[in-house]
């Protein structure tokens, strides 16, 4: 299915282009500028070339943070995407139950991120928190402030609790956008519910699932407020993800140059992964007879 060729379509894109470029290009140029300079104060800066980039790339703690970040993001994606699709498929199609489900699903998304971390501190406390109390009564010692494994589990649970609804909402809206005629045709052909899912629902949801996957990857890769509030990157450095390490450099030590170089590398890593995901998903889509 080829698109209409028309360069005048640029006029439809122009407002979006202008509004995003205004807020995007100038700050990005500034950061590139910082990244090649040693900054002591206003008017006191020296050009240092790619020194910061070399320092950052050779930094062992960065490698460690990157590895943990990748592990975290992939584990989260592998849980949230299938779970979100499953929930969307289970949800009622209409009536007050559908409305109620939608409202409950949306609740975790609406709380500011730092507050989510704070609430989970209490929620997982063994003495006064609901989750902590349940787990401890089941005979499992659980403390995210002392045990690295428990800190990871808590962060994963919080992330999955927080963001699976986003995948579910997108998938649900995607399912509702499938014309009824497709289901009727499948019924006439006697297709099983698995076949309906595999050959109608999944291909038709490709657009929304692409955005869900990219969005969840980017945001989990940039996760900052929740682990910062919950564990402060600890115990030790076990939950020091990339963004927490970056803020330690940028704000803690106030090294603008290295921090700028770090964030450009950070940005390029996300860009690379998103591009790979996007290409892979596009290729899958064109292979199907959707």
């Amino acid at each position, binding site marked *: 299915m*080829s*698109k209409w*060729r*028309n360069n005048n379509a*640029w006029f439809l894109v122009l*407002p*979006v*282009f202008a509004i995003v470029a*205004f*807020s995007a290009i*100038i*700050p*990005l140029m500034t*950061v590139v500028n910082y990244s090649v300079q040693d900054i002591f104060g206003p008017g006191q800066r020296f050009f240092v070339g790619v020194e910061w980039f070399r320092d950052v790339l050779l930094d062992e703690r960065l490698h460690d943070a990157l590895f943990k970040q990748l592990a975290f993001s992939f584990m989260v994606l592998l849980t949230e995407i299938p779970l979100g699709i*499953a929930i969307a498929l*289970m*949800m009622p*199609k209409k009536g007050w139950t*559908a*409305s109620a*489900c*939608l409202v*409950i*699903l*949306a609740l*975790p*998304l*609406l*709380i*500011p*991120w*730092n*507050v989510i971390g*704070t*609430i*989970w501190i*209490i929620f997982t406390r063994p*003495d*006064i928190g*609901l*989750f902590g109390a349940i787990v401890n009564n089941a005979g499992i010692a659980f403390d995210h402030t002392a045990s690295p494994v428990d800190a990871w589990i808590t962060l994963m649970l919080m992330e999955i*609790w927080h963001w699976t*609804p986003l995948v579910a909402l997108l998938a649900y*809206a*995607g399912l*509702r*956008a499938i014309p009824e005629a497709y289901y009727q045709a499948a019924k006439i052909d006697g297709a099983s519910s698995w076949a309906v899912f595999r050959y109608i629902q999944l291909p038709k949801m*490709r*657009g929304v699932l692409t*955005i869900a996957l990219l*969005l969840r990857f980017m945001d989990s890769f*940039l996760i*900052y*407020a929740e682990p910062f509030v919950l564990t402060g990157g600890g115990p030790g450095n076990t939950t020091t993800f990339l*963004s927490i390490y*970056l*803020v330690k450099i940028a704000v803690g030590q106030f090294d*603008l140059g290295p921090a700028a170089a770090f*964030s450009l590398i950070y940005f390029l890593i996300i*860009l690379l992964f998103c591009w790979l995901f996007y290409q892979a998903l596009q290729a899958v889509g064109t292979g199907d007879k959707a």
Partner: protein
Amino acid sequence: MKLKKRHLGLIFYLIILFLPIYWMLNMSFRTNADIMRSFSLIPTHPTLVNYMKIFTDPSWYSGYINSIIYVTINTVISLTTALPAAYAFSRYQFIGDKHVFFWLLTNRMAPPAVFLLPFFQLYSTFNLIDTHIAVALSHCLFNVPLAVWILEGFMSGVPREIDETAFIDGYSFPRFFIRVFIPLIRAGIGVTAFFCFMFSWVELLLARTLTTTAAKPIAATMTRTVSATGLDWGLLAAAGILTIVPGALVIWFVRNHLAKGFALGRV
């Protein structure tokens, strides 16, 4: 009504989902000392003192008003600019279309911490610091691309024959777009509106950097509950419960669009 297995799964999930929210609700009706003293499933001495404080202290309730103002501006800007752009990306081939489309999304990928200072400088240059429009515009950086991507996904699902039939029937483009096309992608518009609202509502770093007093958002006000004496958990929980309310109303209003789905017969 018979209860199917999948309904049980859904109910189980929704209960799990609701537990942390319930705990926040529980905490919001208790005093700080009561929360720290003991575990209790329901508030034993329920109190409204936390909510009273939020509704009587102007620095608290004005935070909600500021947030609602800039989030609304942002959602309106995002939707009105993204709708035509998404249509262009889904229907036309033009110079640089694929590159611009992907570039838009890259604006969500920048780590915010280091971009704060350049952002502050940029908005200072235009004398926009501490205005609602500054926060609304800065949130466009990530909301507009998201809106374009989601809407494009939904628009690509609409068969192009519908456009062609409408044009043959003599519809002008604006009339076709508003009367025929927008109703077809109402699920997409509903979910986009909600996401724009949501991401702008919970964003803290940019909103806090670009405001001082007059346009200070609620998320920034909430960080004040950390004081020298520790955290005021009850007040924070009450403020958290109240941050949910506007968004829950938004999803209530768009729910029909989300659930209505797609009917080809209307064209």
